């Protein structure tokens, strides 16, 4: 999968979890900028992402994510190591 494909799929997940169909998501989007993206929804986004790509992150990685780009990179890293 390419970075753009992962970003598009992650964006769909974020819109779905936060229930905001109109939300614009880029690689630089941070949780602080998006209303409703609190620690509770952060967990939901991460778990939905895990399920959608069939990967698993460890707890520490989940806490370290600073923006959407880092989540996308993490997914790509996990997908690469699965092959």
């Amino acid at each position, binding site marked *: 999968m390419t970075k753009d494909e992962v970003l598009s799929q992650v964006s769909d997940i974020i819109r*779905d*979890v*936060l*229930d905001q169909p109109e939300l614009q998501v880029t690689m630089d989007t941070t949780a602080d900028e998006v209303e*409703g993206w*609190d*620690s*509770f*929804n952060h*967990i*939901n986004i*991460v*778990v*939905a992402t*895990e*399920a959608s790509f069939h990967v698993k992150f*460890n*707890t*520490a990685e*989940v*806490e*370290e994510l600073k923006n959407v780009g880092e989540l996308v990179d993490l997914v790509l890293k996990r997908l690469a190591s699965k092959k």
Partner: protein
Amino acid sequence: MLFNSYVFLCVFLPISVIAFYVAAHAFGSRAAKILLCVASFVFYGWWNPAFIILLVGSIAFNYFISLKLKGEEDRKPGQGWVLAFGVTANLGLLFYYKYLFPLLGFFHSIGLSHFDYGSVILPIGISFFTFTQIGYLVDCHQGLVKDRGILNYVLFVTFFPHLIAGPILHHREVMPQFADDQTYCLKVFNLVTGLTLFAAGMVKKVLLADTLAPWAEMGFSHIDHITFFHAWSIALAYSMQLYFDFSGYSDMAIGLGIMFGVRLPLNFNSPYKSASIIEFWQRWHMTLTRYLTLLLYNPIALWVNRRRQRAGMPVSKAAASTLPGFASMIALPTFTTMFLAGLWHGAGLQYLIYGMLHGIYLTVNHAWRILRPTPSKIKHAPEQFSLLRITCKIALTYVAVLVAQIYFRANNVSDATDLVAGMFGLNGSGLPIVIPANNLKYLGSFGEFFTSHGLLTVGLREIYNSVTLPLATNLATAVAFGVITFWAPNIYQILGDASPALTKVKPDAHWQWIVWKPSLFNAVLVGLLLFVASIYFDRAARFLYFQF
């Protein structure tokens, strides 16, 4: 050693700061680190030298365990067990000193055990250095710890500003600072901002918190059918005492940290100005909230949500608004976390109620966030009510916090419940206020109105002095503390860009004209504040959080 003592302020602090920079300059950063470790052990042992052995033992044990823990890439089988053993040993130590003897006492009191085991002295700061080290072990296991050097580790745990009552540090934010040679270069600006923040914390502790201490102390030791006004004055006195005591301690710690070139995380950010309970926990004892989120809430929530995923159940916002979804995704992790947070504070039932109350508050707050109509769907509310709305939100949040704090402080559950009942007027108002006969004339026709409605009684001057005067003093004090707590900017907002805390605070829009700068006036002010505070050192009690 107490921050608010002459030996600390006049001897320990100047000597350790000077020796630290001289050592760094003459012998390099390694010497400065060793010196700071030794100073920290002296600081800790001043109170009871025997417990230095406990501290050294705890550090040696945890460092040894940490060396066995590797990240995921080069992990050997059985690592999970090593981590489990390390964490259990730490919790065991905490259990022995905090819970075992109260529990045995409880068994004795209900007749299950015939032998009275007495009690044990709680080593100061034990839960803080145990927590810090458990966090470190967990992160070693997850491969997050880059710096495995022993000296930086010992310094990270013992660094005296945070050793006894926090802020609870994360290795990631301070160990790189200890490793950085820049930390050991003397910067006058750091000493100036550090001393300013230290003075602010000292004023909060010695002049504000300790002034209220006897009121709260007196109030909570004589609880029997407390009437309305009396109940509120006791509750408010304690609530303000706790805030100024603990946040004052944290300010002093952060100020001391920067005097040694180290930035510590913020611990309090005007918590009583919060407009919701969720916000309150983001502003009160912030490093504990962060710690609990990382080590309890997140792992529990991840576990629950992954289970739901595997069972094919959704984890979206819509799913959380169904009852089973809400119960498992929000209520369970929140309750478990707050239950354990309450338990951490002590072995009494009142601490459990404190934790459960906050568990309920947070769950209700989350439910409201999920179930309320989304802001875009509400018709635009008229602007003129926004001040009223925010005031109501802050008041509601504060009263909720206050009720929980009563359980937190009270000697037992029935005392707390009596006090809360009093606050809600169930024990009567405590009126009428007494007025001397010859003062009645100043009220004019109101006097007749008040006396005929039972709000005012005509009585002797002695009764007036003992009943009405304290009420008036209470009211005036409450207003003064209210202004400082709910309206004035906090010290980090006043310091602005000069704030030495790791976390930056948002400036208060109404107070942006106050910009702190190093100046002769500010230097004199800081000196004066420290001097005035030092006059009252001898009445100072220990810090409230030393018991946890």
